[in-house]
C-alpha cells in the first residue's frame, strides 16, 4: 500500500520537475522563464522529498522527519531567489516584450 503512494508521489514529482525545466527551455523571454522553475520545480522536488519521508518512515522503525525541513526551506527560499533574480534583470534592463531565445 505505502509503496504505491511513494511510487505515485515520485512520478508526479519527477513530472513537475521536468515541466519546470521544459518551461525554462522553451519560453521566449527571461521573465516568462522565471515562472517555470520557481513554481513547478519547487513543487516537484517537494513531492519527491515527501515520498522519501514516507518511504523511510515505513521502512525503518524511526519516523523520518528531516525531509520535511528541506521541503519547507525550498518553499521559503524559492520566491525570495525569484524576486531577487527578477530585480536584477530589471536593474540591467532586460526587455520583456521581444523574444530572446
Amino acid at each position, binding site marked *: 500500500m505505502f509503496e504505491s503512494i511513494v511510487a505515485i508521489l*515520485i512520478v508526479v514529482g519527477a513530472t513537475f520537475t521536468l515541466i519546470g*525545466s521544459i518551461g*525554462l527551455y522553451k519560453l521566449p523571454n527571461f521573465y516568462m522563464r522565471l515562472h517555470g522553475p520557481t513554481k513547478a520545480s519547487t513543487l516537484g522536488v517537494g513531492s519527491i522529498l515527501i515520498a522519501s519521508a514516507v518511504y523511510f518512515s515505513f521502512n525503518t522503525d524511526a519516523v523520518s522527519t528531516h525531509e520535511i525541513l*528541506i521541503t519547507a*526551506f525550498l518553499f521559503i527560499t524559492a520566491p*525570495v*531567489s525569484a524576486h531577487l533574480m527578477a530585480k536584477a534583470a530589471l*536593474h540591467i534592463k532586460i526587455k520583456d516584450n521581444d523574444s530572446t531565445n
Partner: protein
Amino acid sequence: MLEIAIPIAFIFIAIAFILSSIRLIKGPSVPDRILALDTLYINSIALLILLGIHLGSALYFESALLIALMGFVSTIAFSKYLLRGDIVE
C-alpha cells in the same frame, strides 16, 4: 511498483538536467544563466533524494540539505552582484 517508478523518475530528471544545461550554455543574458544554475541545484536535490530511495540509504539526505543551503546563498550572491556590482556591503 517502485521498481518501475524510480527508473521513470530518473529519466525525467535526467531530461530536466539536459534542458537546464542547454539554457545555461545558451544564455543569452546573465540572469538567464543564474536561473538555469538555480534550476540545476533544485534538480540535483531531487536526483540525490531519488538515489537515496533507490539505494535504501538515508545518508544522501545530508548532502541534499547542503546543496539546498549553498544553492540558495549562491543564487542570492549572483543576483546581488548584478544589482550592486558588489556582494558584501
